[in-house]
């Protein structure tokens, strides 16, 4: 590793940034930090002794995400790469390439299609109404724990997958523990508590699969099994990997995204007021919210498969490349005055759900659920606000995530 580091230091010594990814320092003013990434060529950071390339400009991020031949998501297992095995050996959609990826993606696509969203809308709406009933009884509530975190739990695990509360709680537990996997140091193992949680999830998924095979219904898992039991059979492992992707990865991502929606809007009362006056702005507002504050600042890692260059920066074969879709959303060449929050901006080609073959398969579900959640919240509690008008979020979650820890609010 030091050979690579030495070579880069000799070739491009001015392009190293002294930055600890995910540190309190970095997160203290993360928006300004990322706005800086959005206007500079790809640069290097040294993480646990290993050099990484960071891309923040829109064109650079776009280039990496679109070219899976030069920038693969298949990160080889070796010392120093432990922290990139976020799902402890489970091959999620985000960590596979080529035909295998396309095959799984096509299997999942119908469940997340525009037509499927129409079928789910009413059920998701009922779940949200129930969440708002709970909030109404409290007056003071946590926008994260009481709303954002429960949104996808309800929309996805309850409505789409028809899981029982006990089963859902096992996935919630996993969702809480996954951040630990991204902090594993070179040569270390994943903590036992994570391994146990993964085992519990594995058993749960197997039990659900067995049950739906015996009693198929109208839900995503039954549809998946029907497809996998056809001519183009999917192995049990592939079925597990798909379900794991949906139950764990998606759950976490949308909870964080919804947190960003609430935080962005309620920190800008003038914009919230515009929205209150005209709820037809909600779809635009959601796009602007997820542009302005998505749930993370780094996408899944890529690895360079050859010596190459991005935006004028040399990237040697085998180097880990991290792209920041949040920084790309602050690139002024795509989004003028990018740190201005404007619910009427109507931003096009936002990078919030990724781009290219790995673009988020659940983006329509997330958008539909967030649009409903925001509309219903504003309708039910038009005077809702942050408890403290000066509130500034503290972040947790995995390295690369922007998981708002709490969002104290009142209904009016």
């Amino acid at each position, binding site marked *: 590793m030091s050979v690579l580091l030495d070579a880069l230091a000799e070739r491009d010594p001015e392009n190293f940034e002294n930055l600890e990814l995910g540190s309190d320092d970095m997160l203290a003013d993360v928006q300004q930090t990322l706005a800086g990434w959005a206007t500079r060529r790809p640069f290097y950071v040294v993480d646990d002794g290993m050099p990484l390339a960071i891309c923040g400009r829109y064109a650079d991020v776009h280039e990496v*995400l679109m070219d899976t031949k030069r920038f693969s998501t298949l990160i080889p297992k070796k010392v120093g790469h432990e922290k990139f095995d976020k799902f402890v050996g489970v091959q999620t959609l985000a960590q596979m390439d080529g035909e295998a990826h396309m095959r799984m993606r096509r299997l999942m696509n119908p469940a997340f299609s*525009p037509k499927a969203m129409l079928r789910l809308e009413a059920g998701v709406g009922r779940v949200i109404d129930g969440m708002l009933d709970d909030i109404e009884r409290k007056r003071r509530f946590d926008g994260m724990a009481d709303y954002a975190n429960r949104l996808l739990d309800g929309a996805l695990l309850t409505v789409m997958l028809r899981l029982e509360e006990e089963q859902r709680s096992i996935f919630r537990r996993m969702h809480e523990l996954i951040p630990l996997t991204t902090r594993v140091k070179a040569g270390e193992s994943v903590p036992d508590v994570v391994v146990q949680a993964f085992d519990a999830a594995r058993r749960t998924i197997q039990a659900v699969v067995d049950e739906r095979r015996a009693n198929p219904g109208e839900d995503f898992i039954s549809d998946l099994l029907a497809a996998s039991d056809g001519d183009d059979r999917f192995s049990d492992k592939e079925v597990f990997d798909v379900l794991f992707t949906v139950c764990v990865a998606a759950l976490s991502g949308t909870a964080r995204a919804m947190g960003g929606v609430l935080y962005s809007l309620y920190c800008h009362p003038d914009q919230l007021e515009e929205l209150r006056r005209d709820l037809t702005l909600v779809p635009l507002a959601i796009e602007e919210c997820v542009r302005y504050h998505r749930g993370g600042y780094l996408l899944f890692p890529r690895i360079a498969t050859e010596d190459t260059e991005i935006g004028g920066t040399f990237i040697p074969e085998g180097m880990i490349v991290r792209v920041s879709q949040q920084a790309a959303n602050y690139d002024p060449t795509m989004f003028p005055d990018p740190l201005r929050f404007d619910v009427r901006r109507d931003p096009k080609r936002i990078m919030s759900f990724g781009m290219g073959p790995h673009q988020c398969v659940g983006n329509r579900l997330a958008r539909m659920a967030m649009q409903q959640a925001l509309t219903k919240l504003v309708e039910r509690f038009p005077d809702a606000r942050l408890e403290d008008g000066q509130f500034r979020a503290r972040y947790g979650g995995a390295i690369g995530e922007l998981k708002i820890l709490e969002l104290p609010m009142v209904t009016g």
Partner: protein
Amino acid sequence: MMTTDARPASVDGPDAGQRATVEVTDREGRPHVVEVLYGETLMSALKYRAQLNIEATCGGNAICGTCHVYVDEESRAALATPSEDEVDLLDQLIHAKDGSRLACQLTGGPSLVDVHITLAPHE
């Protein structure tokens, strides 16, 4: 055949420099004339060359449906038949109808000359 996304392509070989002219009606009803290089996808020409409002987020893999267009009836016969993957994806879209195609699966060549298309509504 699936394509990977490309910004406006440079095409080598005997087709280099040749282009088809496609008439496009955008979602607001405005007409545009878009040149598609031979070998380049229609999606790439619409998104990058003409800068029209199509998302085309998956980059030409026929998995997102955000480059959905309608091909005029008189233009359809000349186009290659859609693949099974394209048909499957179109079947998942609310606004799909006769003449629906994914622009990422149409490649510049003689069959695209003088074709007229309309951008489908956002899903």
